[in-house]
Every structure is written in C-alpha cells, then in structure tokens.
C-alpha cells in the first residue's frame, strides 16, 4: 500500500505531474483564501447584528389621489409617521405578496404603505464612529424609507417602479447612536394594492458588520452579471467580426446574435428607466422579449451547429417568438396583463423544444449534444426560477440566476465552437504531417525511379557500346580467323599467308584496344597512335607516308565508339590504297578548315595517294565504300571522294568539331551517293 501510494505520487510528480500537483497544492489554499475573504469577515469576534425574524406590520392605506408616479411616491414618502391609528400585526420576515397575473397600468390606483416596526436597544459599547444600519436582501415593489423614533432617517426612491436587485442598506446618522437608548425603527414601503410588495429578511446592527453581507449580495446580484454581460458582449463582437471575414460559417453570426440577446436580457440588472413611464414600459418590453429571443437564437444555434434539420420546429419557434414580441409591445393596453401568461405559454413551447433536444442528445450520444442539452435545460430552469422569484412566489432572499444561465448558454456555445476550431486545427496539423510524409515518400520514389532510369540508361549505353565492339571484333577478327581456320584445315593456307592473316588480326585487335584508350577527345593523339603502330608496315610495303598534323581543338563528340569508327575508316582506306592503288606515296594530313568565313569550322582529314586512280563511274562496291560511308555517317562526318583515272585518289573526310554539325549532317544525309568530282555527302 505504501509503495503504491509512493509510486503513484512519484509518477504524478515525475511524469510531468509536478505542475499538476503544484497547481493543486496552490489551488487549495487559494480557494480557502477566497472563501475566507468573502464569507468570512475580518472580525474575530462574533457579529452583533440582529436578524429581525419577527416584526410588527401595519398596512396604512394611502389617500386616493396618490398617483403611481415619482411625485406620488415622493408625496407618500414625505408623509410623517403617524402611528396613532396603527394596528400592528406581528409577522415573520421575509414577507411577500405574490404578484398577480394581471396588473393594470393605470396611473391612479389604490395604494398603501406597509410599515414594518421593531425596537432596538443601542448597545452600551456603541460608538459614534460605528454607525448603525439596516440591511435587507431586497424590497421589491418600489421605494422605501426608514424612520427612527418618528424621524425620517433615510429614503430610497431609485427604481421606484420595480426595484428588485439592490439590497437594502440604510445607514443611521451618528447622532442617533446613544448607548443604551431604545430606538423605535420603522420601515415604510409604499405599493400599489393590485401589485403587492415583497420584503426580504432584515438585519439591523453595526454597519461595518453588515457591509460584507451587502457586498457579497451586490457582487453576485449586480457586479457579476454586469461584468459577465460586458464580457459576453465583447466576445459577441469578436464573433461577429470573425463572421464578417468568413461569411460561410453562420455559427459565428448566431453566436454574435446570441451575445446581443444575452446583453439585452441582462440590461435590466444594470439599468433602470424609472423616470419616464413610456421608457420604462418599452425597456421592460424589450428585455422581456429578449429572453424569448435568447432562447430562440440558442436553439437555432444548437440545431445549426449539429447540422440538424428541424425546419418545422425552427419555424414554429420563430413564429412564436415574433408573435410574442409583437403582441407584448407596450402599444397595446393589455400587454401588461399578458406578461405572466406570456411566460407560461413560453414554458409549454420550450418544454417541447427541450424534449426534442434531450431526445437528440440521447440518440446521438455525442458530447456536443449533451452540452447543448445541459445548457438549455439550465437556461430554462434558471428562467423558471427567476419567474417565480420575480412574481414573488418564493422568498425574495435569493438571487437572480437567469443572468448566469444566459452566461452559461453563451459559454457553452462559445466552447463548442472553440472545440470545433481546435479539432479543425488538429486536423490540419495531422493532414499536414500526412501530406509531408506522402510528399517525402513520393520524392523518394521519384528519386529511386530517377536513379533506376539513369542506371538503366547507363546499362543501355554500355550494352550498345559492347555490342558494337563485339560486332566489330566479330566482323573483323572473327571472320578472318574463321576463314584462316577453314583454309588451314583444308590445307589451303601457306605459312606466309597464315602469318599475314594473324598479323592482320593482331592489327585489328590493336586498333580496337587503341580506340578504347581514353584520349580526351584528342583526334591528333588517336591518329598519331595509329600512325605509330602501322606506319612502319606501310613503309615496308613500299608506301612512303607524308604526315601532316595541325593543332586540333578537342572534339566533343569523340568517344571510344567514334574513335573506333575513325580508325576503321582510315584502316579501310589505307588497305584499299595498298591493294588497288599501286601508289608509292600517301599523304595524310589533318587540318582545320571552314567552308566560309562565318561558317562552322570543321576538321579535314585527307588521304591522298599517287596511284593509278579509278573511274568514278565504274562500279566501286568492292572498295568497301559502303562501310566507310556508314561509319562516317554514324559519327556525323562527310566523305568527299575525288578520283580520276590515272591521277590517284583523294579521300576528304570532314569531321565536325561540335555536336551540332553531327545533327546537321544527319538531317542532310539523303543526297544521292554518286561518285565523281562533285562533292558527295553521305
């Protein structure tokens, strides 16, 4: 057990609960302090004020010309206390008459003054610095005045029509404080007979002892509702501004309107319009109407928030509220009578709405539904309580709860909206994370595919190169060796011929290897190496080689496959010369030229022999020119053959310097391959 408790405590502390524990530890004394401050006055000694449970009451009828307006009340208050005819009845406080269902607005109405009398002995330790006061929860019905020993001591005329939310606090003047003296205190409350009065519990004693009670009551009855009203108003304004930016979210508008209704409803707790009859009537009307509008708006909000479609109910409610508002306007005479009736009708309709919402909450079982249901029930009950409270059906010693109900409604609505926001934000966060993950996955996929593609391309290129090499070797060396083997087997191969064949194969192999040497696009190295290998052979065959190699720029397109093609072309040409030309001299030169001053330059490889030449119009298929042309076409080069009978042959090969030439050559390459002195393009 001990270990468990310890473990629990440590997890609370160490598992981030340190803050929580700290808060709890702070909250407890804080709460106690608040309670202490409010509920517990500073004095260590017990309070000495009297709670007036039993007082004497006398209902004095007022003369018939007392009008139900401010002057009438003032006149009533000015009458001196004449208790000669009084018939005192002992009653218990609080004392209240239930408000009738109908009361008229007539000005001349029989009125009466309710007197409440009690005796108080000033304690011997009373001092003039500690005045005495009368404190009461409320006196409903209008004005009141305080008489001590037949003298008017204090009077209150604020909100004489329907004072209902100020506690009574009347302070006695200091000169009356004579220790040991007996005071006869009487409280006068004028009222209309048809309307009745309501007097709550009364307390009499030292003012500073009674003040805390008054303060608490004032706080809960006036201050807090006022503050709440202001806050709700502000939040409503914010909500409205939000709706302005996002018209599609109607809930903000409903919330703003709801806040307006709450503010208007609560105005009665902070303002009064006793002065002007018409103003007062209209004010009351507006405030009362606001209650039903509050209800309507909240119901609409609830339905729309949960996307419920109860159009008929909504319509019914709207019709009712509008009708109600119209009918209770202070233009008609009978509106005052209908006030309580109006409230009871409302109750019936609202009970139906409440039932509907409860049913919704039960069937849907979602948090939002339960919260809305709770709020509206609270509002309804608060309203109900306040109605009974107002109509003096219950003791006036409580406080009005409707403002708090209205605040709760607004807070619930606001909280639900906030929940929705937080959910939306969380959703966005989640989907952002999800999106970024998906994006990353796609990117990785793409990169992998890219890498694959590059790899495949490289493989492809390598494969093609390999194939070409293999093809070349196969065609050249392979076929030579095959032929020699066949000849040898058939006994048709002389040793000398065999040696020659093998040498040719070796040459071919050397050429292939030479082509694979990285030469960094340097044609002069390539051809120079070729000359080096085979130059002596030519000399031995009786062919003088005149060699000229200029400085060449690097040729971007010259890689191993292209190098092989060039070497083969030169090999073929030279071998042709050896076989057919019967020449004594071959001039091989490599220069850089340009067709025109502004044309692209090219490299000119020319091989010229001084042999017997051949007829350009004769059949030249035996010279392997087709292969030569094919190879040159592949690298984007052009061959010009100049041949004349008896004047030797000149092969002129134009090689491009940049890639562009190659593309041009390919594009151009469909000219007819006629031989002759004219320029021939592949």
């Amino acid at each position, binding site marked *: 057990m001990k270990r468990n408790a310890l473990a629990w405590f440590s997890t609370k502390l160490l598992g981030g609960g340190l803050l929580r524990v700290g808060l709890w530890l702070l909250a407890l004394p804080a709460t106690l302090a608040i309670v202490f401050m409010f509920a517990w006055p500073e004095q260590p000694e017990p309070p000495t004020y009297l709670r007036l449970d039993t007082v004497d009451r006398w209902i004095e009828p007022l003369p018939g010309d007392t009008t139900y307006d401010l002057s009438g009340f003032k006149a009533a208050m000015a009458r001196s206390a004449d208790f000669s005819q009084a018939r005192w009845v002992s009653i218990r406080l609080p004392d209240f008459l239930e408000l009738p269902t109908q009361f008229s607005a007539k000005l001349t109405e029989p009125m009466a003054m309710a007197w409440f009398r009690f005796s108080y002995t000033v304690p011997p330790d009373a001092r003039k610095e500690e005045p005495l006061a009368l404190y009461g929860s409320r006196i409903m019905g209008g004005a009141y005045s305080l008489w001590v020993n037949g003298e008017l001591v204090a009077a209150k005329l604020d909100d004489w029509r329907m004072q209902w939310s100020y506690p009574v606090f009347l302070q006695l003047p200091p000169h009356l404080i004579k220790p040991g003296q007996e005071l006869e205190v009487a409280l006068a409350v004028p009222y209309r007979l048809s309307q009745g009065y309501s007097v709550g519990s009364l307390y009499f004693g030292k003012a500073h002892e009674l003040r805390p009670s008054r303060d608490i009551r004032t706080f809960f009855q006036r201050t807090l509702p006022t503050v709440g009203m202001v806050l709700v108003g502000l939040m409503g304004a914010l909500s409205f501004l939000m709706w302005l930016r996002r018209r599609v979210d109607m809930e903000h508008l409903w919330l703003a309107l709801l806040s307006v209704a709450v503010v208007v409803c609560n105005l009665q707790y902070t303002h009064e319009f006793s002065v002007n009859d018409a103003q007062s009537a209209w004010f009351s009307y507006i405030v009362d109407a606001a209650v039903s509008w509050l209800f309507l708006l909240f119901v609409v909000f609830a339905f729309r928030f949960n996307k419920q479609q109860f159009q008929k109910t909504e319509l019914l409610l709207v019709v009712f509220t509008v009708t109600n508002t119209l009918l209770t306007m202070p233009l008609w005479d009978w509106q005052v009578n209908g006030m309580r009736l109006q409230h009871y009708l409302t109750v019936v309709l609202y009970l139906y709405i409440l039932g509907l919402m409860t049913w919704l909450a039960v069937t849907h079982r979602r948090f939002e539904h339960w919260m809305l249901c709770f709020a509206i029930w609270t509002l309804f009950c608060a309203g109900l309580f306040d109605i009974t409270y107002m109509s003096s059906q219950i003791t006036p010693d409580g406080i009005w709860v409707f403002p708090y109900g209205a605040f709760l409604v607004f807070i619930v609505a606001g909280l639900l909206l906030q929940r929705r926001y937080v959910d939306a934000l969380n959703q966005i966060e989640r989907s952002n994370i999800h999106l970024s993950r998906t994006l990353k996955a796609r990117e990785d996929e793409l990169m992998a595919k890219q890498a694959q593609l590059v790899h495949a391309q490289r493989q492809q290129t390598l494969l093609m190169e390999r194939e070409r090499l293999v093809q070349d070797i196969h065609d050249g060396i392979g076929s030579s060796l095959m032929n020699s083997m066949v000849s040898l087997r058939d006994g048709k191969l002389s040793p000398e011929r065999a040696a020659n064949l093998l040498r040719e194969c070796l040459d071919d192999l050397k050429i292939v290897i030479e082509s694979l040497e990285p030469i960094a696009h340097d044609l002069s*190295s390539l051809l120079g190496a070729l000359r080096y290998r085979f130059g002596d052979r030519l000399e031995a065959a009786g062919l003088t080689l005149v*060699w000229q190699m200029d400085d060449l720029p690097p040729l971007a397109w010259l890689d191993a496959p292209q190098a092989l093609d060039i070497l083969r072309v030169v090999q073929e040409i030279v071998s042709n010369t050896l076989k057919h030309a019967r020449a004594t001299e071959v001039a091989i030169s490599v220069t850089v030229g340009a067709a025109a001053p502004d044309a692209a330059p090219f490299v000119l490889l020319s091989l010229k022999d001084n042999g017997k030449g051949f007829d350009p119009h004769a059949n030249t298929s035996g010279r392997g020119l087709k292969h030569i042309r094919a190879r040159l076409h592949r690298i984007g080069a052009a061959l010009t053959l100049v041949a004349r009978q008896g004047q030797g042959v000149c092969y002129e090969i134009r090689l491009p310097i940049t890639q562009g030439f190659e593309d041009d050559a390919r594009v151009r390459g469909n000219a007819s391959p006629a031989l002759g002195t004219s320029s021939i393009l592949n």
Partner: protein
Amino acid sequence: MTISVAIVEDDPGFRDTFCTVVRGADDMCLHSMADDLPSGLELLNLSAADVLLVDLGLPSGSGIKLIEQAQVRWPQCDVMVISVFGDKRNVLSAIRAGAAGYLLKDTPTDQLAEQIRVVHRGGSAITPVIARQMLNLLAKQVEAAPSGGASGGDKWASAVLTRQEQQVLVLANKGYKYEEVGRIMGISRHTVMTYVKRCYRKLHVNSKTGAIYEAQRLGVVFD
C-alpha cells in the same frame, strides 16, 4: 665495344628469338637470362649489364620491382621493358620506375637489335599516347608545385619541361616520327631522342619525389 644484354622474360619463344638476335649481332653479347622475378633479382648480383630487358608480366610479380632494383644495383644500365601492346599504364609506371625505353614483343627481329642499340646510345622510343600522358603529368606537376619549398625547390625546377622538350612531346603525340620531328624543329634525329630521354628522366626523378605518383595514384593524371 659489345653491348652486354640481359633479359628477364618468362615466355620461352621470345627468349629464343632474342637470343638468336643477340647472337646474330656483332656488337652484342648475351649477358644473362632469367625467366622469373626471383631469379631476375639474383641476376643483379652479377656484374652490371649494359642493357636489361624486363618483361612486366612475370608470373610471380611485376617487373617494376626489378626495374627499381636495377636502378640501385646497376646504375649505368639502360632498362627496357617488354610489352605486348605498349599499353601506356604499364609503360608509364615502368618509366617512372626508371626504364629508359620499351620494346614491343612483335617487333620484327631485324629491328630488335637496332632498338637495343638505340637505347644504349641514349635514345628512347615513345608513342604518341605516352607523349601526351607525359605532357599531362609534367604539366599538372608544375601546377601542383609548392610555392618555394626549400627542400624540394631544385627538384621541382628541374622537373619542368623546357620548351624544346615540350615541343618534342607535342609533335610525338601528333604521330610524327623522330626524323620528321627533327625536320620540323630543325634539329637532328639524335637530338630529338635525347630530348625524349630527358623527359623520361624527369618523370623518373619526379616519381622519386613521390608527387607525381600521388597524382597518378589518385587518378588525377589519366584522363
């Protein structure tokens, strides 16, 4: 005076050819023969020969080691490497190790003797590709030279090619033969060969300092 020639070659056919050539030449005599790296190294215990032919592809190891040893043991000897295709990688490393020239295995026998004489005289054979590589090597080495280090200063300076040497290499790279090079440059064939030999020496010298070796090892040089 007869040129004493030693050969380290594992291929018996070529050894026979070689022996025939040497015996056939008046001015040459056979110094010694070995068919493998260890026995070749043992040859170095004998008195020095004038020309040493080394096959790079020996069964038990690369002939480069032998070349390096020969530089130490037989400083006056001219080493030639025997190569089938004259592929530049091996030849270049042989030159770095100190070889003075190389011989292609399929050289006609009548040229074999002449080439030996040439190397003995101080000339060196060169292929266009090797010439280009040497140009690159020595050019890069000039770029990489430390700015005025005290110890390596002189060696670096001597490694730089002179304009003549550079031109010889360039022309050789283009495929011109020694005579043609000489004709273009206005110098004798023999002078051209001397230039080439000097280039070889510079490569060998630089390889001893290790700089070029590093560059080559890192693959900087070979394009």
